[in-house]
């Protein structure tokens, strides 16, 4: 059992070990949908939501798999259940809150193949967190993802006015920016204790 305190887990995943900038999880959506602040916020909310759901699922699966003694099925079960959970969440939201569905819209199905989701499930198992710790971990990871996405979107909106050389446009300049951002986030190392 891991006895890390809840605030420490939260700060650690939110800033110090930011999923995007220091663990390289979820880079694809980070590069793909970070061109506008509004979409970035929505994507962040959607990912946080799915992270929470899949964290709970993964916690349950882990107990069941340990009980029947089949840890080698972990990966297959996680990915299958996460994919199913995302579909289910999508259907439920569509039925009960069309407004939220329109807001999250196309992002929900894309999230299934976001490595942050599976990464979170694997890490929480590895670290042996209990149920509450898992939830806080998921919240911190989602918050960190949203934070990185929004900062990046803000920078890219400014970048549209800048005079970027032809060959560096698009992904290249975004990656360089992400590198600088990641450098800045390294300054937080040691904050979470």
């Amino acid at each position: 059992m891991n006895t890390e305190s809840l605030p420490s887990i939260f700060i650690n995943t939110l800033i110090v070990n930011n999923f995007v900038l220091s663990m390289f999880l979820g880079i694809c959506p980070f590069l793909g949908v970070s061109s506008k602040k509004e979409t970035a916020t929505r994507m962040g909310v959607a990912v946080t939501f799915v992270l929470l759901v899949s964290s709970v699922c993964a916690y349950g699966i882990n107990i069941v798999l340990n009980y029947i003694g089949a840890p080698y099925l972990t990966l297959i079960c996680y990915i299958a259940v996460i994919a199913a959970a995302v579909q289910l969440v999508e259907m439920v939201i569509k039925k009960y809150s069309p407004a939220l569905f329109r807001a999250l819209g196309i992002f929900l199905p894309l999230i299934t193949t976001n490595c942050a989701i599976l990464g979170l499930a694997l890490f929480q198992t590895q670290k042996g967190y209990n149920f509450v710790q898992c939830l806080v971990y998921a919240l911190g990871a989602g918050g960190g993802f949203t934070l990185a996405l929004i900062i990046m979107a803000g920078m890219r909106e400014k970048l549209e006015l800048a005079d970027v050389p032809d060959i560096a446009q698009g992904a290249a300049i975004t990656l360089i920016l992400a590198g600088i951002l990641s450098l800045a986030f390294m300054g937080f190392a040691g904050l979470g204790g």
Partner: protein
Amino acid sequence: MSDQQGPPSSMDVFLRGLWQENPVFVMLLGTCPTLAVTNKVINCFAMGVSVMFVLVMSGLLISLLRSFIPKQVRIASFIIIIATFVTIVDYAIQSISLDLYDSLGAFIQLIVVNCIILGRAEAFASKNGPAKSMLDAVGMGLGFTFALLCLGVIREALGNGTLMMDTPFEISLFGPNFAPWSIMILPPGGFFVLGLELILFAWLRKRREQRRAQTAQA
């Protein structure tokens, strides 16, 4: 490719993944593991070989089963097939070298959600025969490994002054007075090196196009 007529030959299928449609540099797929594991050359090899194995095996199986898998559930079936092979790789690496397994961390298991593999399964293996699918998978796998090495060699050489660190073949590049540029093996280095390499390739492509335009004029 607009100038190609008819179905591409086997050689084209193989070479396409290596350069023209290189998964990392051209299609920007699978960037997460690319950035995460390229701080050591040996990690790049291990990751490249693992991805290639999963690509080839899942490509083979998917193209053999392509007429049995109903269209509606194909993505789910592909993911289950891929996850099975990733589990095999995961346990294999664990038994071959625990150090390597530790330094690659969760990224071996995260091959499941690597867009390259699902992308090739959907775009190629589910539409072509087993032989061609395997050829395509090997090409893409080599292309991915090549891209990883492009980053890994630079990052390890600048960040640690060595090549093949943590292996019996370790080579020290710059002698004992080298002060390592440790940012390069830390996360920001990954972003910088990939960004700069993309700029380099864009520059090369632009220059080649200009030269072609000049010869066309002349």
